[in-house]
């Protein structure tokens, strides 16, 4: 263990607006780099879905000083790993390297932030379009239950809300993306003042900051357009809404219960219930998260115990929450045994929710959930890559401390939260049943 606190962090900001988080820990000769851009599928237009993710693929196609397939080659050449990911709210690019190659990682990231466009060609776009269409086939269209999530978000959020469409996008939109849009998207969102750079691992903070200055300080900032998002109801990203009644999700939640039944190439029915809850970071988000742990995490949870063990109507049952920025979602799901109707599964899930809403969970259940939350938090800290990840929404100080937000939540609070947020008039339901005819599930945009 080093003399400094192993999770000590330093925060800096360059003149061009780039935020920098340093988390030095010299226990292992490794460094993890994570560059976050505050742009995701929510910044797309409803008629051009999937673009943020397709764009993420384009960022691995080289930049002015990095050859077409050389990004991974440079990383592998020094024994590192790298990848990227796109969510509704953000896109991140990350690498873990031997610590003496920190500079290489910074150079690669700065080259694509500063010098991407000269390297973008229509051939590269065409190629990545094909790769992404295959990714969609593999993950969604050719996977059992693959379309259920897409339908859930479509039902949860109205057509013009930025969380309505899938992150990977609809096939027809992926097919229609143009090189001009690549240029436009880059200039608009991939600027230093819309990014956070985090380093975790074996480095001297002063030296690392100097390197960051050297590679990133000259990259120009740009005027950002978060305010232009078509959902004018939403709070600005850095300003949490003062109370729940002003939040978009509260209004959306009032749309009432909606449901669809989906046929798929499967043997066992599956039911999803989804609910609007406050955004990630909100005190109530943590209550809702703990609630999903109490309800459905592990084999001693009520969902598993009641539906799988006692009544034996389900094969599996679980509950989870999404870490979304503007309005979050709790999902609860059960896969039925053969012959069990979707509606019966739904009723059984509902029954567990009513129970939780009517009576605070036993202290033993609370303790179990808190212990699981703690274990999850601590095992995340074992990995430098995970630590570099934890700058989500510009709150790096949560590193190692986020778990404290759960410790003060009481059983009564949990019960009230269930009653308020998981009421049946607020729920969205997707039931997937074995298909009757032989047609494939459709990935067409819903009408």
């Amino acid at each position, binding site marked *: 263990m080093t003399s400094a606190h192993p999770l000590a962090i330093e925060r800096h900001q360059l003149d061009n607006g780039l935020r920098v988080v340093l988390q030095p820990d010299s226990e292992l000769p490794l460094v993890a780099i994570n560059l976050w851009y505050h742009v995701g599928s929510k910044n797309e237009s409803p008629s051009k879905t999937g673009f943020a993710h397709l764009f993420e693929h384009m960022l691995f196609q080289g930049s002015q000083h990095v050859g077409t397939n050389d990004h991974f080659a440079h990383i*592998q050449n020094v*024994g590192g790993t790298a990848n990227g990911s796109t969510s509704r709210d953000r896109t991140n690019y990350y690498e873990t390297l031997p610590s003496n190659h920190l500079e290489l990682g910074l150079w690669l990231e700065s080259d694509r932030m500063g010098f991407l466009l000269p390297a973008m060609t229509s051939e590269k776009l065409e190629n990545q379009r094909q790769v992404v269409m295959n990714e969609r*086939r593999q993950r969604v269209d050719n996977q059992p239950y693959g379309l259920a999530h897409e339908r859930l978000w479509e039902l949860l959020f109205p057509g013009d809300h930025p969380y309505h469409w899938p992150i990977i996008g609809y096939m027809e939109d992926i097919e229609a993306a143009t090189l001009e849009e690549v240029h436009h998207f880059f200039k608009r969102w991939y600027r230093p003042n819309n990014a956070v750079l985090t380093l975790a691992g074996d480095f001297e903070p002063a030296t690392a900051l100097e390197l960051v200055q050297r590679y990133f300080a000259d990259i120009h900032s740009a005027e950002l357009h978060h305010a232009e998002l078509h959902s004018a109801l939403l709070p600005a990203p850095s300003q949490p809404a003062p109370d729940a009644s002003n939040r978009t999700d509260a209004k959306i939640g009032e749309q009432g219960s909606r449901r669809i039944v989906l046929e798929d190439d499967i*043997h066992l029915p599956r039911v999803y219930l989804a609910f609007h809850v406050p955004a990630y970071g909100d005190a109530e988000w943590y209550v809702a998260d703990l609630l999903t742990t109490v309800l459905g995490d592990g084999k001693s949870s009520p969902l598993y115990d009641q539906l799988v063990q006692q009544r034996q109507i389900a094969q599996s049952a679980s509950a989870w929450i999404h870490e979304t920025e503007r309005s979050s979602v709790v999902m609860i799901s059960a896969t039925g045994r053969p012959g069990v109707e979707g509606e019966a599964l739904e009723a059984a899930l509902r029954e567990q929710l009513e129970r939780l809403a009517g009576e605070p969970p036993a202290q033993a259940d609370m303790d179990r959930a808190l212990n699981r939350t703690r274990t999850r938090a601590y095992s995340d800290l*074992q990995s430098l890559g995970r630590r570099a990840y934890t700058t989500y929404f510009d709150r790096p100080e949560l590193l190692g401390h986020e778990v404290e937000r759960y410790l003060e939540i009481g059983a009564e609070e949990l019960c009230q939260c269930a009653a308020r947020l998981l009421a049946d008039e607020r729920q969205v339901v997707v039931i997937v049943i074995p298909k009757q005819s032989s047609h494939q599930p459709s990935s067409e945009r819903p009408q």
Partner: protein
Amino acid sequence: MADVLRNPAFPESELERLKSNMVRDVTIALSQPQPIAQQRLASEIYGDHPYGRLFPTPEMIQTYTVEKIRAFYHANFGAQRTHIYVVGKFDAAAVEEAIRESFADWTTGAEPISRPPETSSARKVHLIDRPGAQQSTVRIAIPTIDPSHPDFTALQVANAILGGSLTSRITTNIREDKGYTYSPGSGITQRYRTGLWTMSADITTNVTGPAIQEIFKEIDLLRNEAPAEDELRSVQNFLAGIFVLRNSTPPGIIGQLARIELHDLPADYLSSYVDQIYAVTPERIREVTAKYLRTDEMTLVVAGDRATITEQLAEFGEIVD
């Protein structure tokens, strides 16, 4: 933990539920194209050996009783066959004492058994029809050596050049150049005294044939021509780096220790591995690829839309249902 291992209850009351859950877990897995292809591949390569059965049949599960489970447990679990690994920050003396206290008088149990499988592979295409599927789930495989073999490290490096990394030749060709697939990759499954080299990809239905052609083209190229020094060096750096990353967490270290034990690797394996990686020469890569990745003996499994792909597959060998 000691109590669970030494005195497992195996309650009768849980059995029916666990059995029916198991049946349905298998059902769910076998509605996905990847497990379907994987199961077929295992049974073609390993036949009746347990390695050939990835999933039990519902009939097998129905025959399991608490008596059978107890008998199996007592015949197979005991001190002689058990290793305890503890990795992390702890007081070694205290942990050792605790382990001794809990396990020292545990029954010795049966000796480890060794029953490596007999493998077989022939150039045929095993086709599983998934009408209307938008992608073909493809496996191309050949049984090969295991980590205890002196050629294994060289074969691992050859695999990384061919399909075992994001910059590998096959990935560059069928993903980055042609866009036929999203996540192609090859690897060597390491089992006791046997290995299985497998190339996996989910390929757009209408280019299934051309993509498989490119895969074979890349394997044959490496069988015939040694790679450039630069290409080899880059892959060696990658493998050495991944090795360090893999050993940077407690579960990673436990995995390595268990692997050494399973394959009877030398005690200095962890400290000499990086040197062994760098000792591989370009000519050696060509040699092991030619020796072990014999394209004319590879088994192909394809789960996809028969109506569209049968014709595309004809050139790769006899098509078997």
